[in-house]
């Protein structure tokens, strides 16, 4: 079981309130990702759930019990830290066994669990090494192993992949997703990388300045962002925004069109502009088009085969069904 409910929790450091009253429901077995720019309070929120920080007010409920006053170790949660936080003076085996040792398990039971976890994580050959002798990915696996053996109600991940290089990050992302599918345990995952959020989550919680901007499945957020912030944050490359005359034509203060929902042509289209930079990735081409009256270059995602070059005049047409409209508060107009 791993159902976590946050009731009107707040967190202040001194006079600064980093989390205004916040409600959130995390269901058993869900993979929930907290995403937002740096300093949005996502890590603080995770640490509140972990019990590493005390809430200033409100209640945290884990599996039907009020856990607000329960110390971290007794909450039945396991955490994987950004820096891995392995114990450098212990072997991999001792690192993974540490929570079991603290729980007072006998040596045989400890070994059995450590061996099982090591097998799942491909660490069997490294059990006698020290963390310092491992690569980044292996260290990350040890940290995950230390979390798995506790059989927690939920896993908490605090930006676990941000210290890894790009290729390894993709691998570990898959491994964590696979782990979730096999364990079916609740996972809460904090990241500032919206690609990680989109690819891994069952449910994404978008945060800004401690406030939940939107909660929903990756595709819900992609297709119907509740406001401009979510629209701009989710999706890569970012959504293009048009204001003024561009928007008033659609009865909105701002309209947003994703790069993949703009078609580009040499001959005719709705808006015309000049190609600034074109990035050819093979599978796709990204064009950055300077359109008069739009402050930032408009990003267009096109097929890999198009032959647009710097300085070409092009015409852009948005897919009318895929235009997002926002009012002057930045909220979505249905």
């Amino acid at each position, binding site marked *: 079981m791993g159902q976590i409910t946050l009731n009107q929790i707040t967190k202040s450091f001194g006079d600064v309130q980093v989390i205004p009253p916040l409600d959130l429901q995390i269901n058993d077995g869900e993979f929930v990702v907290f995403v937002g720019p740096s300093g949005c309070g996502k890590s603080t929120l995770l640490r509140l759930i*972990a019990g*590493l920080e005390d809430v200033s007010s409100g209640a945290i409920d884990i599996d039907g019990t009020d856990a607000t006053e329960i*110390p*971290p*170790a*007794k909450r039945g*949660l*396991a*955490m994987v*830290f*950004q*820096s891995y*936080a*392995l*114990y*450098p*003076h212990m072997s991999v085996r001792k690192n993974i066994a*540490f*929570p079991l040792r*603290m*729980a007072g398990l006998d040596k045989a039971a400890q070994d059995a669990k450590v061996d099982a976890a090591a097998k799942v994580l491909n660490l069997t050959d490294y059990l006698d090494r020290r963390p310092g002798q491992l690569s980044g990915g292996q260290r990350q696996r040890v940290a995950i192993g*230390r979390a798995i053996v*506790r059989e927690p109600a939920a896993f908490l991940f605090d930006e676990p992949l941000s210290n890894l290089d790009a290729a390894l990050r993709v691998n570990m992302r898959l491994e964590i997703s696979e782990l979730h599918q096999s364990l079916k345990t609740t996972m809460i995952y904090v990241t500032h990388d919206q690609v990680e959020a989109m690819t891994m989550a069952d449910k994404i919680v978008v945060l800004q300045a401690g406030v939940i901007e939107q909660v929903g499945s990756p595709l819900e957020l992609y297709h119907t962002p509740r406001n401009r912030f979510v629209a701009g944050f989710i999706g890569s490359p970012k959504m293009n925004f048009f204001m003024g005359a561009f928007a008033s034509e659609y009865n909105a203060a701002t309209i947003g069109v994703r790069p993949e929902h703009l078609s580009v042509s040499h001959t005719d289209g709705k808006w015309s502009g000049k190609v600034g930079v074109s990035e050819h990735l093979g599978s796709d081409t990204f064009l950055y088009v300077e359109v008069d009256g739009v402050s930032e270059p408009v990003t267009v995602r096109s097929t890999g085969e198009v032959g647009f070059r710097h300085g070409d005049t092009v015409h852009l047409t948005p897919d009318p069904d895929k235009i997002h409209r926002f009012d002057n508060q930045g909220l979505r107009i249905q």
Partner: protein
Amino acid sequence: MARAVTPRRKTINTLAAWAIGLLIFFPILWTILTSFKTEAQAISDPPVFLFFDWTLENYAVVQERSDYMRFLWNSVIIAGGSTLLGIVIGVPAAWSMAFVPSKRTKDILMWMLSTKMLPAVGVLYPIYLLFIKLGLLDTRVGLTLVLMLINLPIIIWMLYTYFKEIPGEILEAARMDGATLKEEILYILTPMAVPGIASTLLLNIILAWNEAFWTLNLTAAKAAPLTAFIASYSSPEGLFYAKLSAASTMAIAPILILGWFSQKQLVRGLTFGAVK
């Protein structure tokens, strides 16, 4: 741009380092040499350096006249005891300041350090009177306590610096893993801080061993450590340089040997955190 280290510059640097090292070591060397001379050779003019009749006579006389072992034992108990006690108090104190700092932590650290700026003689009277009242005068317990208190700021400062280098996330991980505060300090923090704790220990043993002001003023016969042993040869028998040197050599030998064997640890400890 880094300056190029030419072979010539390297030679000059090495020579300079040796020269400075020998200059600093010379008084100690001279003391040791003198301890093997006769009293006449010890004050001869011009002084003799290596070519004299080596003798162990001074050591025999010193050993005969005073009970070296008793002074040594007192030194070991007082220096060792005050250091261990200081570490036991210093580890939790440094832990709290390094990992759960408050707004006032920096002030407390500065305040503790400021006590080291006070001349010791300024508090001699109050401490002396306290010692009389508490019956601590000329006791090893009393001296251990005073030396512990005197070195505590240094112990806490050193430990604080080492603990600051340990990432807080590791301790949080231990907390998540179910470690109590005691287990966290015992199984995680202390083993990780072993190099730092070891050098703190060594440095403070040396400081306490060499401490002369309090040991001379607060002891008479029973609890007197090796500093008092040297002093007993200096004033009334000031002209017996050879015997004074023998006594000094015997007093500094244990700590010199300890320092020699632990020099790697000491240097590493003292530069810890400064060079990353």
